[in-house]
């Protein structure tokens, strides 16, 4: 006991150790119980929650975008199709040094700073690790091969295929077919969220917009098992998308190219209709633009160029451009006079180049009037008034008709109305009348207003599509076949009629139609008769023509001309010059094509627009005549 602390007491140490062993055992059991308790909580109590989380992890419902329906022309030429393109995407987790990789891609395929900025934005919105984020949407063939050659040092770089809309004819059909564009925040408010869940594009403009619902198709979905890298391992369930309907249009690509070629680099529009069906054979608005730019994206600079150009290439003049019809309106005034029995084919007036309403000082001039008071068409009946385009005759007739009768007949021809079945018409022209004038200007209707309308000036406005429809109605001798794009589709489409129904014009008798058409034929064919005896367009298009064409020229003022002043082109800037119109159909006794040509600020209708019309009709009819002996 003297030095107990220095002695090893093995018995007490053994007892102490045994005690500590028990403590260890207790510790082990307590700790194990904690583990087991936690396991019970995870695996039994919250089991279902974790099953859900695990399934959410691995099972993804993926929406499958339906392939968009094709758009074909009347002969089956593809106007809009879907093409596989290759997208460059990056997987962040597989890239060791992201800035170095982006530099490398800059060198290899010229990735721009703008693309990198977009890429970082998309990166911040991704949902899980290993998700591929797009850096460039469309790679060229050359870029794909550069990337594949360098693949070994581009770990984490993926090239993925995707279907994109493609317009093989580019600018040729930009306005009529339209294009799809990227879905915007704004679109999301109007589109069906479910059906568009896999879609990136929606039809904007033209046929693509009008037939959006049918072309788009129905979204599909698949339940897939994915791994943490987002790679699909197994498709558990698939409900395939329904491909959009393919549609065939009345359009004739060859005629469309002929029209574009005939217009050349001038601003203008051509609308050609098959009068028998109302089918739109060609619809051109120049300048156009490459619709593919809206699919693959364009630089901000290019977009600014398109939107700020004075030539407004994005504007569809053929459908939405509104212009005074000028003299092309005269056949309507003439038929109104006949139909309402205000005049006859035999009645004549003396045209000395000027018209005055009795008791009023204002003088309305003929287009042929000169300051020396020469001009006028002499003794004029309705027939001559048409082929010589006498203003005075129609001033007089309009004045006698009155605006109500005139407007009534003009509306029967579709002026101021949306008549097309499947063309979205944002502007529908204007047929003015007293009610409209009081509402719009707060002024009463003056008899002089009617006189202006008599030659297609004043407030009357038409679109090229409306004038083309009017030409088709005259060609059909009053029978309406409303203009339409769609020729056929495999099933009935859901899109509803966008226009108003029209009734045939029966108050004009068959013989009166023939007389009017004879007069319009003389516009083109009456020649070699001497001074002021030829049709207005004969000198420009009437020679060496292999078929009978009925036509009417028009020249629409853009700026007002003062009383007693002559129109002098030299004094006006290009954008103040007159618009040139020509309306025509052929062959006159069995029309196969009715069309209208507009050349903005082009000058005279006969000299500028008529040759374009001749070229287009030639392109359409001559091969048919050669083929069938028509």
């Amino acid at each position: 006991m003297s030095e107990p602390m220095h002695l090893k007491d093995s018995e007490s140490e053994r007892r102490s150790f045994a005690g500590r062993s028990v403590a260890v055992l207790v510790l082990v059991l307590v700790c194990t119980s904690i583990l087991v308790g936690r396991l019970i909580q995870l695996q039994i109590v919250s089991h279902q929650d974790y099953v859900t989380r695990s399934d959410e992890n691995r099972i993804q419902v993926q929406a499958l975008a339906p392939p968009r329906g094709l758009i074909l022309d009347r002969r089956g030429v593809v106007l809009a199709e879907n093409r596989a393109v290759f997208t460059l995407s990056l997987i962040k987790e597989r890239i060791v040094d992201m800035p170095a990789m982006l530099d490398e891609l800059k060198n290899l395929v010229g990735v721009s700073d703008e693309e990198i900025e977009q890429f970082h934005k998309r990166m911040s919105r991704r949902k899980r690790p290993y998700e591929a984020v797009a850096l460039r949407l469309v790679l060229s063939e050359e870029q794909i091969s550069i990337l594949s050659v360098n693949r070994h040092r581009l770990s984490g770089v993926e090239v993925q295929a995707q279907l994109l809309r493609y317009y093989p004819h580019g600018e040729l059909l930009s306005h009529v077919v339209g294009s799809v564009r990227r879905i915007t925040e704004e679109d999301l408010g109007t589109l069906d969220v479910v059906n568009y869940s896999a879609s990136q594009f929606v039809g904007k403009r033209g046929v693509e917009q009008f037939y959006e619902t049918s072309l788009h198709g129905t979204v599909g979905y698949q339940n897939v098992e994915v791994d943490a890298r987002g790679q699909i391992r197994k498709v558990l369930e698939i409900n395939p998308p329904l491909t959009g309907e393919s549609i065939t249009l009345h359009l004739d690509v060859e005629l469309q190219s002929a029209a574009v070629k005939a217009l050349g680099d001038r601003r203008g529009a051509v609308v050609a209709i098959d009068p028998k069906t109302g089918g739109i054979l060609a619809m051109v608005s120049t300048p156009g633009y490459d619709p593919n730019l809206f699919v693959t994206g364009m630089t901000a600079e290019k977009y600014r160029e398109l939107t700020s150009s004075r030539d407004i290439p994005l504007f569809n003049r053929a459908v939405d451009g509104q212009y005074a019809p000028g003299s092309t309106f005269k056949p309507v005034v003439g038929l109104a006079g006949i139909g309402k029995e205000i005049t006859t084919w035999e009645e004549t007036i003396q045209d000395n180049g000027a018209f005055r309403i009795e008791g009023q000082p204002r003088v309305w001039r003929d287009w042929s009037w000169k300051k020396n008071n020469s001009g006028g068409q002499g003794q004029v009946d309705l027939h001559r008034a048409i082929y010589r385009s006498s203003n005075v005759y129609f001033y007089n007739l309009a004045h006698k008709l009155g605006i109500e009768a005139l407007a009534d007949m003009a509306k029967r021809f579709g002026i101021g109305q949306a008549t097309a079945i499947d063309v979205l018409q944002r502007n529908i022209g204007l047929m003015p009348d007293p009610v409209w004038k009081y509402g719009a200007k707060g002024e009463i209707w003056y008899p002089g207003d009617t006189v202006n309308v008599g030659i297609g000036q004043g407030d009357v406005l038409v679109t090229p599509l409306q004038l083309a429809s009017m030409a088709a109605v005259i060609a059909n001798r009053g029978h309406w076949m409303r203009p339409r794009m769609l020729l056929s589709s495999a099933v009935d489409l859901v899109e509803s009629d966008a226009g108003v129904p029209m009734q045939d014009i029966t108050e004009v008798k068959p013989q009166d139609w023939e007389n009017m058409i004879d007069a319009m034929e003389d516009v083109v064919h009456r020649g070699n008769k001497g001074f002021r005896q030829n049709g207005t367009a004969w000198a420009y298009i009437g020679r060496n023509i292999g078929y009978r064409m009925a036509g009417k020229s028009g020249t629409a003022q853009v700026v007002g001309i003062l009383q007693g002043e002559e129109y002098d082109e030299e004094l006006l800037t290009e954008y103040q010059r007159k618009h040139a119109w020509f309306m025509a159909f052929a062959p006159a006794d069995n029309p196969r094509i009715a069309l209208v040509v507009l050349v903005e600020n082009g000058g005279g209708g006969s000299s500028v627009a008529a040759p374009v019309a001749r070229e287009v009709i030639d392109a359409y009819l001559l091969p048919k005549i050669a083929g069938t002996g028509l």
Partner: protein
Amino acid sequence: MSGSDFVRTMPVGQGLVRVEPLYRLHIDLWLLLGLLGIVSFGLVMLYSASGQSETLLKAQLSRIGVGFVVMFVVAQLPPRLYLRWSPFLYGVVLLMLVAVLFVGLSAKGSQRWLGVEGFPRFQPSELMKVATPLMVAWYLHDRPLPPRFKHLAWALVMIVVPAALVAMQPDLGTAILVTTAGLAVIFLAGIYWSWLGYAALAVAFSLPALWSVMQGYQKERVLTLFDPERDPLGAGWNIIQSKTAIGSGGIYGKGLFEGTQSHLSFLPESHTDFIIAVIGEEIGFAGILVLLVLYLGVISRALFMANQIEDTFGRLVVGGLTLTFFVYLFVNIAMVIGILPVVGVPLPLISYGGTSVVTLLGSFGIIMSIYTHRRR
């Protein structure tokens, strides 16, 4: 009574009442069976977790083979050898740890390995898990127990120095295990409960200081423990995915080789540190319970063996190694199921990895040696 009957009931062997052949080979049957059970269980799960990779399975199998050979050899050496060589072993491993800091090989951002041409590379820190308890037990075995304060202080120095070296690699998980192994010996040596209480208080008060010296990523792991959703794609990803794996396994699991979390790569480190999540997902709560029973069986047997040993050194070593083994598996499972921060601790005898398996089996060899060489 025939001769053969006599032989069967009274086996020859230096007058011992009961001598089993394994016992003469210095192998404890029950411990061996337990270890074989755990190892076999582990191989099956590893095969599944690795995506049924036979290459990986064979690699692990050969390491386990090496481990059992090491265990067998170590078990043959008499305990006095360990007693005598403990300080030497400790010193050599300590030098190797210093060497690692200067000439070690790195992987995944830390420098842990020593490589010598012609030998498989290894982690000296793993050896320290055995060397430290041996050293502390050597130091305390001939001093009065419960240990005086002075002795305790020295023992703590013996623990802190290697632990700090390991932590500098940095390898927090192994540093914790080295510390635990040393502290386990001190605890078993009979340190006063009151001192333990003071120590606990001291630790509690030094937590804020500890927080301030922790590295950014370590703080991140602690914060992530409390709220994995604060960075679900980054620091929180592992723990969210492992909890999801285990929780979705339920009572009986999704079936062997059928775990979606692991096979679809949602679960990171699925064949190394996070393998318990694969077990929980594929064979469920029941599977983990079976494994825990195997582990507890081995631990109970080892504790029982420790109490049969006469000398203090032997008792402290066996008890210390046993307790370390438990801490090992507790820390691993606790971190995977989200009750401890993520530190790099493998699931003992199951996670893929060489040095750990060999060291662990070697430490069981020491336990067997001490037990089977004891006086009776």
